[in-house]
């Protein structure tokens, strides 16, 4: 799993501090909400980016999640964890955004260009790889493209289940709550997602491994 797991003590300390910030916000101290936004924005952005696949939508999801969180804060149960709660709001909104995006893409006549996904593709902000060989560059770019396409080909539920389980390390119950599904159905969704990704990517991954073994790729 990629998600860094904080210690139990620090998780508890953050949750306690969050609970105080929530109470103060509900009492009318709007700046207390700023603490929550600044603390959880990065986590939500990471989730949103992995779900939507582009920075533009990810940033919208982050903003919308905190706006909705603020509006619904009166419904937030004090004993819950604010981080988990707003995370769930973000995941739900990201699913809606992915659905909208799919409809838009289906209707859009113009093909998408490589450059349309936002700042991460901007030559100014792109991090330069150290001395890539032409083969390595071609293969890694091709693989990245294929991986993005394979992720984009998943259904919203599959992508959500895969991102939340594989990359974010969320529990099945938590994912099931977002997908409004049962635990068993959610496990099946995780399976289907990995299976689809595997079938789409395995040939390319194996070719790359062979090339590496033969020394044509560093």
């Amino acid at each position: 799993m990629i998600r860094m797991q904080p210690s139990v003590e620090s998780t508890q300390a953050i949750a306690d501090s969050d609970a105080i910030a929530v109470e103060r916000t509900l009492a009318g101290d709007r700046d207390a909400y700023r603490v929550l936004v600044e603390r959880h924005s990065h986590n939500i952005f990471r989730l949103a980016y992995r779900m939507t696949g582009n920075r533009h939508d990810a940033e919208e999801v982050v903003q919308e999640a905190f706006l909705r969180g603020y509006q619904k804060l009166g419904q937030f149960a004090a004993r819950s964890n604010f981080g988990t709660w707003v995370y769930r709001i973000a995941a739900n909104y990201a699913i809606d955004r992915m659905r909208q995006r799919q409809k838009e893409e289906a209707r859009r006549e113009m093909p998408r260009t490589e450059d349309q996904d936002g700042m991460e593709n901007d030559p100014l902000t792109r991090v330069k790889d150290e001395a890539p060989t032409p083969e390595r560059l071609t293969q890694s770019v091709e693989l990245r493209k294929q991986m993005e396409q394979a992720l984009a080909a998943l259904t919203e539920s599959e992508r959500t289940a895969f991102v939340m389980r594989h990359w974010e390390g969320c529990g099945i119950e938590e994912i099931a709550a977002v997908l409004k599904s049962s635990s068993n159905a959610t496990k099946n969704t995780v399976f289907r997602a990995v299976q689809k990704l595997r079938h789409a990517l395995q040939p390319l991954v194996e070719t790359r491994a062979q090339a590496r073994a033969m020394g044509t790729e560093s």
Partner: protein
Amino acid sequence: MKHMTEEELIAYREGVAEQRAVISEHLAACEECGGEFERIEAVLAALDTLRVPEPGTDYGRRVWKEIAPRLAEKPGRWWQLWFEPRRLAAAGAIVALIVAAFIAGRFTKRLNPPDNIANKEQVRERILVVAVGEHLGHSERMLVELSNAAPNGPAQKEVNISAEQRRAEDLLQENRLYRQTALQEGDTGLASVLDELERVLLDVAHSPDEVTPAQLEAIQRKIEQRGILFKVRVVNKELQQRQDTREPAPAQDGSTKRERNKV
């Protein structure tokens, strides 16, 4: 020996298998299943190399800056959102348009047969058309100014685009509102152009106040490559034509939405 299924191996890899110990023991003993498991691992390891861009250390602060003006004084009271100055201004404009549409309707009523009276849907769409037209006009002007911005001479190392940046921030909020409304109305063509415009506005709004000539050129190139100015002009012109040809209001058959969806 009974081999593990793909489902069991994936469940094991993703930590959701029920009989972990059994699978673990089997993998240690069975070369075939071990190989299959490694192939699954290789694909997932490749996927793990996909990076998430770092939004920056001040990202939380930027999110707060974006959402703070849209928050009510106290949370949980939805109706307070309608009393924000920006929303009040927008609501005022909409009320004025409704009144204008009502008055126009009163006059056309005398001239036209009853079956030509604009229905609610037409009025709503007309309001959207007028408001979006204005928004596109403002966006176009900002983008033209930005596209024409240039350093005063080769010695100038930074160009101040803070005015355009602030305008982009304001336009961004409106744009989101209109895009969502267009989607709700089923006007996907308009929503699509607004979505593309939003990406450009977002880039401009997140640019630094002062940019180097190279950064300015990159922004200008991005505007040009996306052809956003052209698309904005086409949609705006099309909206204006629709507005002009709607007097007196024709019967609504959904053709306007279909036409815009082609853009």
